[in-house]
């Protein structure tokens, strides 16, 4: 039974593309057949983060408009063969997508893959609407700060109204993935605490990904963090989140500032999840 997951947020720059790539890679590493689809037509980034930017020949818009077959547009990842990418177009914009065309592609993808991860663009316009329309569940990416939380709330409202599942009266599963969590700043009250965010958004928590310099390094190298540095706190958080998506029950531990013995000696801080 394939699952279509939309990774969305409302707000831009909170970690949708990073999370799509990392969750996708983590699920593929767990043995699932995964495709990540970039819905950000005109401002594509997923191909960069996946390291496939030099292999893009055909894209989502080409397939929607019938200029290419789905198999021609899919790019298989060189590192894990159960992971594929369907890139977006960079030269067109979201008006090139049609609901009917996207629906067709999703149906075709359902036959080949266990997990179809739709990387939504920011905003609440057509691109974001199309990314969520055919989804079975959503992962809402939120930073623990006020504007991101409010925008996420808006997108949650739209998930309950504008998806095909909601229109048919079925319950639509939504999960919260808190990203760029900075423990020190949360402790100082500069960022919202996890409980505050959960109280406002009222959806189940999928995971907490700590702020990490490794993420930027990984995206510069074109390798999702779970493949590039699986031991890093961020990668571990994504791997656990993927396992929770697969149904495992793992307790969520709020990242704390733990000072190991040597770090205390050397006076350095480390955020450990």
């Amino acid at each position, binding site marked *: 039974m394939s699952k279509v997951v939309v990774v969305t947020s409302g707000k831009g720059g909170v970690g949708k593309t990073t999370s799509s790539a990392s969750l996708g890679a983590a699920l593929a590493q767990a043995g699932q057949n995964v495709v990540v689809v970039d819905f950000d037509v005109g401002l594509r980034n997923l191909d960069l983060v996946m390291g496939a930017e030099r292999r893009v020949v055909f894209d989502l818009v080409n397939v929607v408009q019938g200029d290419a077959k789905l198999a021609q547009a899919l790019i298989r990842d060189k590192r894990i063969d159960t992971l594929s990418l369907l890139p977006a177009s960079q030269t067109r914009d979201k008006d090139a997508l049609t609901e009917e065309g996207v629906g067709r592609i999703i149906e075709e993808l359902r036959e080949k893959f266990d997990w179809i991860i739709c990387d939504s663009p920011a905003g609440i316009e057509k691109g974001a609407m199309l990314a969520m329309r055919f989804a079975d569940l959503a992962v809402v990416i939120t930073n623990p700060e006020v504007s991101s939380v*409010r*925008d996420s*709330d*808006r997108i949650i*409202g*739209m998930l*309950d109204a504008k998806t095909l599942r909601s229109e048919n009266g079925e319950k639509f599963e939504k999960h919260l993935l808190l990203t760029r969590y900075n423990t020190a700043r949360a402790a100082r009250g500069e960022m919202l605490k996890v409980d505050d965010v959960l*109280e406002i958004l*009222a959806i189940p928590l999928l995971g907490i990904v700590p702020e990490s310099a490794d993420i930027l390094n990984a995206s510069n190298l074109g390798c999702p963090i779970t493949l590039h540095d699986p031991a890093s706190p961020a990668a571990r958080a994504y791997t656990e989140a993927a396992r929770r998506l697969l149904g495992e029950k793992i307790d969520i531990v709020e990242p704390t500032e733990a000072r190991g013995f040597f770090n205390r000696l050397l006076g350095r801080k480390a955020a450990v999840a």
Partner: protein
Amino acid sequence: MALIVSPETPLETWLAALDEQMRRSAEFFANRPLVVNLAATLEAEENPQTVLEALEARNLSVVGVEGIDPSLLADTRWAHLQRLSLGRKMTHDGRTDRLIIIPDDPQTPSEAPESRPATASLLIDRPVRSGQSIIFEDGDITIVGSVASGAEVVAGGSIHIYGALRGRAIAGLKTGAVARIFCQKLQAELVSVDGFYCVPEDWDDKLQGHPAQICLDQGALKVLALD
């Protein structure tokens, strides 16, 4: 826009159908200029004047003819139509003409009013998300959950929120000054009863985050702690 009509023989049948249409669509035909295509009439060797007279008798204003040589009407009292046809660009090349279905006159609205529900009260048992707007003018609204920042709740009566109010609450559209707003956690952006409104600047900081009720007291909006 002129209406082009093409009378067909037998004329009586066509005129009867026209009468029926005029009965149904009186508004459409009122002051509607007519252009008459007399080609079929001529072919059937009917006198075009008969047709024109019949239309005139129905108070229809004929402004032009087509389908025939206008000079045929030269010696009749319809000669002015010939001139009209020539003066105005009455020729049509079929491209700008449209075949239309003449609309029936609009129905007068039914008299019986819709019966109002016995108890006018709206219950919402999930959080109201940012950007959502709940409008219920017939009575009270009860929300089991929070109202998010950027959401609004508008009620004809009172508003009862079993959760935090972080958005806007506007009460009393129908019941007026007796309406009240209740919430378990006041963090509202705007509250209003019967048109009187205030924003967080206007109430005591100590009330923020606590259970509160908002009511009108002699024309002044009061935000009070709910113990």
